[in-house]
């Protein structure tokens, strides 16, 4: 028994400082050494979904609102990036932020409904409807979007340097993902993150502390929309094509499940959930229906036995996995 306790405290001490992060980053830089074209594509896809999960978790996990905004913002980000690159010939490093901004605007619209204080399921249903409405727009605004055929996205190009291989895209995506995770972490561990968590726990009490809850609800939706919009742009660049079917309810459920399996409200959880759920189906591609069944079973199992998600499982012995809203060690 002493051995186990020693191992735990060692893990805790190792996990507490900045070293785990540095090691992970170094390992991350070396990933392309061990992948082929296809597996590298999957890794890139994982990075896209890490950003999606991080963004989506802010609204459903940290703010605690059941709002199905992810596919709306994901789709708007993807289509905006694609449209700006195809129809306006803007380079990706302008188009992608453009997509993010549109995602943020979509977030503002969604927050407008949340602010009216309507009941739990109303918000869920109206955001669901908005997402499907956008999909209808993608299908029918075909001069811009090429409808169901989808819009082909040109290769990302930085002043003559083309991101035309999976490996090149990997480093670009890695940089974006790290920036997103770091800045979200900064926000969550600040008074903004605290206010958002407080609103989730008790909105009325939060107001009694002089906090303008409406502003922070909007902020959460805007940041979430911005981040998921970035992921949408990344998705467009990765797949090379944006089509309405990529942003349907199945996709929404996938986003949802990543966050739930990883851990609601946990940044580390978002990353874990994205990695797990993106990588897992790769092992079950063969049979139709099997993927779905296993997906349903996995989600049910997590909900029954580890409702706080994978992150809580690791948080027990690795401090960095525990979501904090302050910097106690500073």
């Amino acid at each position, binding site marked *: 028994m002493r051995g186990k306790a020693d191992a735990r405290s060692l893990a805790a001490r190792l996990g507490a400082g900045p070293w785990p992060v540095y090691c992970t980053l170094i390992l991350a830089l070396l990933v392309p050494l061990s992948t082929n074209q296809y597996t590298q594509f999957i890794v890139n896809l994982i990075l896209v979904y890490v950003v999606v999960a991080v963004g989506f978790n802010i609204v*459903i996990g940290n703010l*605690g609102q*059941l709002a199905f905004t992810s596919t709306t913002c994901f789709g708007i980000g993807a289509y905006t990036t694609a449209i700006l690159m195809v129809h306006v010939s803007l380079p990706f490093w302008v188009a992608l932020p453009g997509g993010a901004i549109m995602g943020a605007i979509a977030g503002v619209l969604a927050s407008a*409904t949340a602010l*009216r204080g*309507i*009941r*739990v*399921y*109303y918000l*869920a*249903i*109206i955001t*669901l*409807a*908005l997402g*499907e*409405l956008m999909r*209808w727009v993608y299908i*029918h605004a075909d001069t811009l979007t090429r409808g169901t055929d989808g819009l082909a996205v040109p290769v990302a190009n930085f002043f003559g340097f083309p991101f035309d291989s999976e490996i090149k895209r990997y480093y670009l995506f890695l940089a974006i993902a790290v920036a997103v995770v770091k800045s979200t972490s900064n926000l969550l561990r600040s008074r903004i993150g605290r206010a958002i968590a407080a609103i989730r726990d008790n909105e*009325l009490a939060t107001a009694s502390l002089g906090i303008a809850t409406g502003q922070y609800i909007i902020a959460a939706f805007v940041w979430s929309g911005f981040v998921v919009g970035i992921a949408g742009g990344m998705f467009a660049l990765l797949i090379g094509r944006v089509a309405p079917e990529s942003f349907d*309810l199945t996709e929404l*459920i996938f986003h*949802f*499940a990543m966050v*739930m399996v990883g851990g*609601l409200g946990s940044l580390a959880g978002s990353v874990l959930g994205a990695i797990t759920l993106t990588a897992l189906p790769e092992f079950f591609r063969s*049979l*139709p*229906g*099997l*993927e*779905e*069944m*296993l*997906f*349903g*079973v996995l*989600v*049910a199992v997590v*909900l*029954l036995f580890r*409702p706080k998600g994978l992150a809580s499982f690791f948080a027990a012995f690795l401090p960095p996995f525990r979501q904090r809203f302050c910097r106690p060690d500073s």
Partner: protein
Amino acid sequence: MLYQLLISGIAQGSIYALVALSLTVVYRGTTIVNFGHGDMVMAGAFVAYACVVLLGMPFAPAALAALALLFVLGWAVQRGLIEPIKAGPHIGFAMMSIAVGYVLRGTVRAGWGREVLPMPRVFDVSPLVVGDVVLTGDAIVFVGAVATFMIVFFLILYRTQLGQIVQAVFQSERGAALVGINVGAFHGATWGLGGGMAAVAGVLLAPVTLLYPDLGANFLIRGFAAMTLGGFGSLLGAVTGGLLLGMTEQLLGGYVSTKLIDIAAYLVIIAVLVLKPNGLFGRTAVVRV
């Protein structure tokens, strides 16, 4: 043309009404919205299909089999998957019901692959023509069956002792528990009833539509739209909302553009929640500090 559209709308809307009513029953009885309900409707349809086409059963016993199976499924889901996580956030329930839907869809897809399946015609009712309006045989059966079901349902709810018990639990679970009603069993039975009602919808749909594993999503959204329009949580609202939604779809499709039929439900949801969130018969909740 107006009347034709309205009649088609009522026929279509009767299924939406049934779906919305089932969702509302489960919501009122357990405060949970079953996001897997659409997939249960699909499952009911496939069970009926399997019984008729693979086992060669006549339609009536096949329908009953579907009903019984889905009732048991609903009960089992509530007792085994929902009850254990009842202390958690509502997001968890939503996710769990979605997971159930996924398992149902995956099972059906694994069994039937990518094919879209027709079921042999069951009812041979000849169409009724009144003036300019044609009532197809299918429409008559639909509306007739749903109407019968609803009449029976509301009669039981408002005129029997069982119905009194149900109303009591709807109003106050704690009060009901104090009077000796087994609330746990009630919850199981409510989900069972929800499943059974899903089966009724599926069974009615099976002979007249092409069946495929993803057909549930459509009905779920329309159920939500109907509930929203009629007032979330209102039984009467669910039925009214469903019928109105069906009519709205047909009217928009007939007078404006057929493209709008697909999104009529979403437009209704957004319009209602922006203009009059309580819908037609909804009640405002009071928040106590």
